[in-house]
């Protein structure tokens, strides 16, 4: 099962409406509004999609299937942008 974490070279700051993120190879910042900001904070530690969903389910009052779909879409987009990277369980970036 794939594990994900924040790209170590992404810069970010907490804002009133979420998290502002800038990747090393892009000029535009991303504003991650809730629940994206919660996912971003959780990805400080490598986690699987199941673990992310499990952590968010108590905070967000929505069906698990909705949360899972949102998390999968967000993680895929952030991975595409180079802001999140898949890692092996040892914590190394997966090739």
């Amino acid at each position, binding site marked *: 099962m794939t594990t994900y974490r924040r*790209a170590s070279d992404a810069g970010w700051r907490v804002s009133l409406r979420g998290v502002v*993120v800038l990747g090393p190879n892009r000029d535009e910042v991303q504003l991650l509004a809730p629940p994206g900001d919660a996912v971003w904070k959780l990805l400080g530690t490598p986690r699987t999609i199941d673990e992310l969903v499990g952590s968010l389910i108590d905070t967000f009052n929505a069906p698990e299937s909705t949360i899972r779909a949102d998390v999968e879409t967000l993680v895929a987009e952030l991975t595409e942008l180079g802001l999140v990277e898949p890692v092996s369980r040892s914590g190394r970036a997966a090739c």
Partner: protein
Amino acid sequence: MVIDSVARFVAANGLDTLTPLEPVALSGAEVRDLMRVATRHRLVGLVAGAVADGLLLVDDDGFDFVAGTHESWCAHVLSVERLLVEVARQFDEDGIALRLFKGSALALGSYADPSRRLFADIDLLVASDDFERATLLIENRLGGKRALPELRPGFDREFGKENLVRVGRIEVDLHRTIAAGPIGLAIPRDELMNGPAGSVVVAGREVPTLGPTAQFIQVCVNAAVGDYPARLLSLRDVAEVASALEADPANVESVAQRWRALAAVKRAVELTWQELELAPSTWRDWAATVQPSRVDSLLMRSYLTSARSYTRPAASLLVIPGVAGRARYLRAIAWPQAEYLNARGWSQSSHTRRAFDRVMRRR
């Protein structure tokens, strides 16, 4: 409502204040007034923090205005940090040692929440011997442009505080010392570069910073004489670094005395505790009793006059060693090279007249 007192309240939020801070409700117009004052005092991050903490009560428009302004600043800060990482990487490759201070060093190293401590540029200390090489590296490899030529050839290396190099819209301030004028000149540069260092992690890269005592003295000097009157963020920096630093006033006193900065440290601590209305502490008690020398007090006062562009250089003569060094310094101040005057839109006669007018107005 007096917006200046709200700004002080914002600057003190989260610190140990004399009286607990009570929530304040702001109208839309007051939010905009506060943000104008906050921009002047570099407090936008702390305003956003006070809104997040429920200490500033604002309507939806006010919330969006504060959030939008804060997010624009955060985007700038992240661009600054990305450039910082690139500069640090290039310096490392070329064997140029650096010490990061102010902006990122404080946001990531001293503040519990870096998003509350915003900044506009990069401040790096480099050794005098590397000063020109570091400037050229940023010009040649990162497309930097030097803001102003030297007063005279060789002046920056011997006496200058900093070279300002602009990369796009971001300014990289390369410093040989941590303050302009006599205090900066009196501080032994090798102690700044070779003394104890700290570090912060910026976008995954570890960057060396000033050590704790040097950092505390730097924020104090900045708060005491960097801007007149002092910016509230500079006072907040003093309180933040003081709380992160193990309370060891004796050590700070001994280093600050050797660096001729004791009067500035005393003033900064007193101003911080007074303006932010902080509860009594070891630092405040220490500042109330410490006695800087007359010369150190004179050096500090040279920054606090309306003619400081001229009183500061005059006081610098007290700390520059040797007659030849003083003569070189005086010559550069009185007769800058043509490139410098042209860049500022001055002539030699307007430069001299300006100095005379400022000094005489002071009297």
